[in-house]
Structures are given as structure tokens and as C-alpha cells.
């Protein structure tokens, strides 16, 4: 099975109203070419699940600036003033989630769990509308899973089977998102033959990766 696809083909994947998960933290570890492909697809009314909305011209920021997103689920929006502006104008629905809870909700979505119990947010506005469960005398919030139709990831290297190796702090949310979407597309700097990545060094197994977009190198 050939997982490597050209960029023109990638942009045909994204549709109006899709839920898209994007790896990256402040744009580091975000697949910028795949973000461009979403823009080129003209898909709109997207529900975006990402750590943050980065800045206006980096990471997932351009999706917000170009008004492709109707709802964003993120932990931080402060570095992209356009997110705040659209939220205040009522153009964009923003669900703010503590970053550790965000990771657990994505993990739950990918691990077949019905949710997670976390103490984070107890006694704050985060607990509003959520079920509280007491275990051994301590209160926890029930936080529900996050799942997407498409996850767009960034890795340094893939083999043709889709096994991924990330680079430094660009790993961040990518590995957990690989588990939490129906279709997983990875943008990689280089692709190597099967067998060229030591199985001990694989960070995301290739069975989770459906499509590979290769940028740079060959």
C-alpha cells in the first residue's frame, strides 16, 4: 500500500464541517504544508482541535485568520489576536480546555475510553456543566473524549510503512493525535525505505498513519 500522496491530493480530503485535529505547540510541530492544503481545499466551518491557535501567520493560525473555523477547542488563544477578536464578535465558538486535560481528552478519544477523571479545574469555571465524581474522598471532573475525522501531524522522518520519528520539542501533541482520528496524515521532512528506522526508535507506529506528505529532501 502506497501511503505517500502528492499535495494536490491532500487538499481534496478536507470538507466543509469537518473536525480536524492538528499537532503542534505554538506552531512548533504543526504540519505547515498540511495547514496550507486545508486552506487550498476551501473547506470551511471546521471544528479545530489544537493545543493553541499559535500566531496569525504560523501553526494553525492562518485557518483562524482565513475564517475556516467555526469552533476551536484549545488551551491557549492569547498569541493570536484574531482568535480573540472573532470570539468577541461571535463569529467563532471557543472552548478553552486546560492543556493537561486537553491531552487526556485526546488520549481518551484514541484509547477507547469513555472519558477521564481529573482534579484539574475543580473550583474554577472549567467545572461548569461537568459531572463531578468523588473517589476516595477527592473530587474529580469527568472530562469527555475528543476525536476527529482527520488528524494532521508533523514528524521529522517516516518510513514507507508510516512509522514516525519526531524531532525534539516538535513531538508534543502529535503522538496522541495519531490515535484519535479516523484518517491520519503526517507531513514529514524525509521518507526512508521500510527497515531503515530501528523499531526501537519508532515513536508512532505506522499502522496509525494513513497518508504521508513528504516535504524537502526527496
Amino acid at each position, binding site marked *: 500500500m502506497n501511503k505517500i500522496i502528492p499535495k494536490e491530493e491532500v487538499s481534496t480530503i478536507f470538507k466543509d464541517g469537518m473536525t480536524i485535529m492538528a499537532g503542534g*505547540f505554538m506552531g512548533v510541530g504543526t504540519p505547515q504544508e498540511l495547514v496550507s492544503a486545508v486552506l487550498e481545499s476551501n473547506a470551511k466551518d471546521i471544528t479545530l482541535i489544537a493545543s493553541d491557535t499559535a500566531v496569525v501567520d504560523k501553526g494553525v493560525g492562518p485557518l483562524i485568520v482565513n475564517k475556516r473555523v467555526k469552533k476551536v477547542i484549545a488551551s491557549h488563544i492569547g498569541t493570536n489576536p484574531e482568535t480573540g477578536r472573532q470570539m468577541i464578535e461571535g463569529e467563532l465558538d471557543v472552548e*478553552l480546555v486546560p492543556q493537561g486535560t486537553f491531552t*487526556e481528552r485526546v488520549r481518551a478519544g484514541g484509547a477507547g475510553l469513555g472519558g477521564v477523571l481529573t482534579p484539574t479545574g475543580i473550583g474554577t469555571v472549567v467545572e461548569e456543566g461537568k459531572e463531578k465524581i468523588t473517589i476516595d474522598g477527592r473530587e474529580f471532573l469527568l472530562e469527555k473524549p475528543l476525536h476527529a475525522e482527520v488528524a494532521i501531524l508533523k514528524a521529522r522522518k517516516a518510513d514507507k510503512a508510516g512509522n514516525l520519528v519526531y524531532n*525534539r520539542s516538535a513531538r508534543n501533541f502529535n503522538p496522541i493525535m495519531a490515535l484519535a482520528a479516523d484518517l491520519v496524515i503526517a507531513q514529514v521532512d524525509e521518507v526512508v525505505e521500510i527497515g531503515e528506522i530501528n523499531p526501537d526508535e519508532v515513536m508512532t507506529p505506522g499502522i496509525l498513519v494513513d497518508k504521508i506528505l513528504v516535504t524537502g529532501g526527496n
Partner: protein
Amino acid sequence: MSDVMMTPKQIIAARVAKEMKDGDVVNLGIGLPTLVPDYLPKDVNVILQSENGYIGLGPANDEIDMDLVNAGGQPAGIIPGGAFFDSFFSFSLIRGGHVDVTVLGGLEVDAKGNLANWMVPGKMVPGMGGAMDLVTGAKKVIVAMEHCSKKGTPKILEECTLPLTGKGVVDLIVTELAVFSVTEEGLVLEDLQEGVDLETVREKTAASFKVKEFIGC
């Protein structure tokens, strides 16, 4: 190190540094807390955790790597012996009690150890990022902030008015005037910064507090 010419932020960072023990795993918030390592005694080495996915955070090298940033998204470095991991693991470290100390800024702190530092309704809603998890999971939570707001109003209150980051989570408050611990009986003045008298602290603090015996004499 002389206190002369130190800015309030430097005074605060230097005092926070005295709270660190050799070998502590420490997470520093953006801004003032990042000054703390500059004031660590030579025999105290801490291991800095960066919530975007590694331990061993250090200053950026001359060779900037776009894939190596701190929790503020700025270029950073990693020291020998450091390790990278994903965000799920990073927040397992944070929430799971594997971080000894977190140092964060504050907009308001109150006598019950409540902290507000993530939003001002109608003005600033940047999001909480990792702050709520840090104050929930770190073994010791230190709030490092200037004693009063830019307008001169007290930031240490009987009860916070802004939306909370965490309820009953603060262990220690360090300002350029004083150090308070949060106890079950409320705030206790632990220390006065050099040259500061008790009356000044009373004037600028909008919460009642007990005073440790040896202070203010």
C-alpha cells in the same frame, strides 16, 4: 549579590531561588519566574521541566533550532542528560506529582490559597494553557508577583475577585516586599525583603495575616 539596583522582579526572583533544593524538578512560568535560575546558589542544581515536552530546559545555543522552544514558544536549549517526550507524558509528570516546584505569576492571590492568573473577564481571555494543571499537580506552588498592581492596588486579597486558576493551591507568595505562606489558618508572613518594614506590608496587603515571631522587631 547586592540588593542595590535590583528591580522588583529581580528581588522577587532572587528570593524565590532560595526556596529551591538541589535536585528539585521545577517548572517556571513565563516572564518573571524565568529569572529564578540566575539567582540559584552554586550548590543548588534544579532540573527544569518545559511543559511542551522535555526536562533539562536550558538557554538557547547560538545555533537556533526551530523545533526546540520553551513553553512560551521561544527558542531554547536542552542540557546534557535532558529528555524529550510528548505532551501526554509531560502533563502526566505535572499532574501526577512528579514536579517538585512550580513558580507562576499572579493577578490575585487570596488568604485561602486561591490563585487567579489566567483571565480578566471582558478584557483578556488568553486561555489557561498548562497553568491549571501545574497548580493542581506540582508538590509546591509558589506565586511570584509584584505586591500591588500597576495601579497600586493590592493583589493579595481576602478573597479573589477574578476567575480562579486553582482553588486552595498556593503554598507560598513571594513579592518584592514580603514572603507569605498559606496555612489552614490563613496567611503567615514568613519573611520581609531587605529594607521593608511591617507597616508597609500591612498597608499594601488586603488580607489579614499572622506574623512569624522573629519578624518585624
